């Protein structure tokens, strides 16, 4: 730092050396993270190497058995399926969310605010209540089949509730806003001149989309994918309510260890493996995102 002349500190240099005021402002956040993220994770880590007694109390006797059980094909298959469901959810969210985010981002100022509000309105109601509403829609004598019948469409009746399709629908519904908002953030920043320039240089609509718009919105797309994919892996309420708890996902298995099976150490081991999986997918997506930002 001393090499740099005093009179012209670079903004980057400022950012790297936060003063005590900055730390003071950060303190609540740091305390929060320590108390509610770091400490519980450490407890989980310790529990995951412990045994349990007959009552389900954690006994502090070292064992690797819990991690050995995680590698049991039963649980590996469930891990795999959870990742599959989450990936499918992320892809559908991206395909559905991208055009929506693009339209909002390119709309006029007044419309943009209104449309954004519409995306956020669902958050005003509890997530569980909205999921119960889907039961009312999808059930056999529900709104969807009622509407199909009333319109005399040559379709159905659909038997959707308590199927894997209902689970994916529920997941997409729950996480779609988390895809739309980051993509919107990227779209809003796109300089219209770049798109015009691409057109002037003879690029067709598809070429503009794939060579200009997609690279420019990649950071938002990556952030959205992360925000959808990661929580979707661990979701258990949707599987229980819309899937009829028929096909367990990893979130259900972990929940069971803490409740029915009274096996906290094994639940902790599953949780730790799960955490590593998150960290891994985050690292992968971060690389994508950095690449996207280099383009910008």
């Amino acid at each position, binding site marked *: 730092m001393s090499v740099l002349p005093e009179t012209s500190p670079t903004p980057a240099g400022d950012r790297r050396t936060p003063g005590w005021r900055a730390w003071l402002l950060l303190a609540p956040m740091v305390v929060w993270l320590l108390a509610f993220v770091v400490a519980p994770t450490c407890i989980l880590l310790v529990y995951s190497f412990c045994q349990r007694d007959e009552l389900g109390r954690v006994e502090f006797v070292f064992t690797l058995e819990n991690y050995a059980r995680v590698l049991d094909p039963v649980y590996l298959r469930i891990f795999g399926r959870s990742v599959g469901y989450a990936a499918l959810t992320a892809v559908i969210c991206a395909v559905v969310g991208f055009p929506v985010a693009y339209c909002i981002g390119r709309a006029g100022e007044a419309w943009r605010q209104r449309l954004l509000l519409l995306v956020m309105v669902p958050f005003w109601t509890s997530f569980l209540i909205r999921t*119960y509403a889907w039961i009312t829609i999808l059930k*056999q004598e529900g709104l969807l089949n009622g509407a199909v019948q009333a319109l005399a469409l040559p379709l159905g009746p659909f038997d959707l509730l*308590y199927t894997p399709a209902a689970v994916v629908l529920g997941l997409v519904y729950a996480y779609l806003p988390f895809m739309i908002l980051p993509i919107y953030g990227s779209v809003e920043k796109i300089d219209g001149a770049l798109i015009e320039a691409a057109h002037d240089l003879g690029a067709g609509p598809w070429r503009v989309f794939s060579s200009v718009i997609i690279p420019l919105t990649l950071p938002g797309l990556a952030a959205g994918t992360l925000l959808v994919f990661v929580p979707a892996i661990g979701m258990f309420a949707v599987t229980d309510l819309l899937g*009829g708890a028929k*096909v*367990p996902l990893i979130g259900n298995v972990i929940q069971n260890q*803490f409740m*029915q099976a*009274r*096996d906290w150490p094994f639940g902790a081991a599953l949780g730790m493996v799960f955490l590593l999986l998150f960290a891994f997918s985050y690292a992968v997506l971060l690389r994508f995102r950095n690449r996207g930002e280099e383009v910008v």
Partner: protein
Amino acid sequence: MKTPLRLLVALATLLPAVRAAAGGELNLFGWSEYVPQAVIDGFTKETGIKVNFETFSSNEELLSKLVAGGGNYDLVQPSDYAAEVMIRQKLLAPLDLKKLPNLKNLAPEFTRLPHDPAGRFTVPYMSGTVGIVVNTERVRTPVKGYRDVFSPAHKDRIVVLNDSRELVSWALNTLGLPVNTITAANLAKARPVVAEWVKLVKVFDSDSPKTALLNGDVDIGIVWSGEAAILWNENKKFHYVIPAEGAHQFIDVLAIPANATHLSEAYAFINYLLRPEVSVLISGAFPYTNPNAAARKLLTSEQLANPASYPSAGGRLETFRDIGKAAADIDRLVTDLKSAK
């Protein structure tokens, strides 16, 4: 007893309970959807004792809170097998039966059961069974036991409790094996039976299995008797059957934890709940089987005619005992079979 909003309740119990500093209060830890608010209000109005009511939605939740030393409760409401573990682990205080004159109202068949043979630690609150509900408008064939429920004809028309131990115990009953002595050999025998059954089920739901039946998404189910009683009240087409192969009877009890501080308040509340005119209110809100013989005399003939609350015929009834670590083996078995689909 089981709430459809289990998660909300779980979150609510995380909130620290607000407690007054002085005496004249009672810290009650009970099942969600099981103690009517009117009963609690009536007790406070009569005695001036403030009731701090926290709820749980499974015995396992209750056990883990108590062994973790949290809560400081004066009265808890475990089911039979959970009470048995708590007695063995010396987590419950022996009752001074002289302070509970209203015990005389209880029917003898609900007291001194295997979980508390001397009746020194627990007082029955409500009882129930796990049995079959049939929508007789859709299912015309006679249904007597588990095998009739899990017939290929009912594929994707079945709701059952989302409870691994229940599911496995039905298979063990069908095979004539004991449900309270879990061995690897017996689990291996039950495995193919459960595997076939799991493929036929449309919904697993412990919180509100009646919903899928009411919505018409399934025609037949194996559910808590209280849920079945509500269905029957809703529509008489829902018949309740105690499985011929043998069924699970549960008795939820009241007990005082060993470290309770408000003892006289706890005794007062137990005595209050045992009054026939109070017990009737509980039956009205949650139509399980009322073990209070004096209260049963006050029930309407329609309440007594509810076949789910007061079943007349069917297989042998048996309560669950604690199975310790075998619970994890059962959970693994059912998880495996469910994910094999």
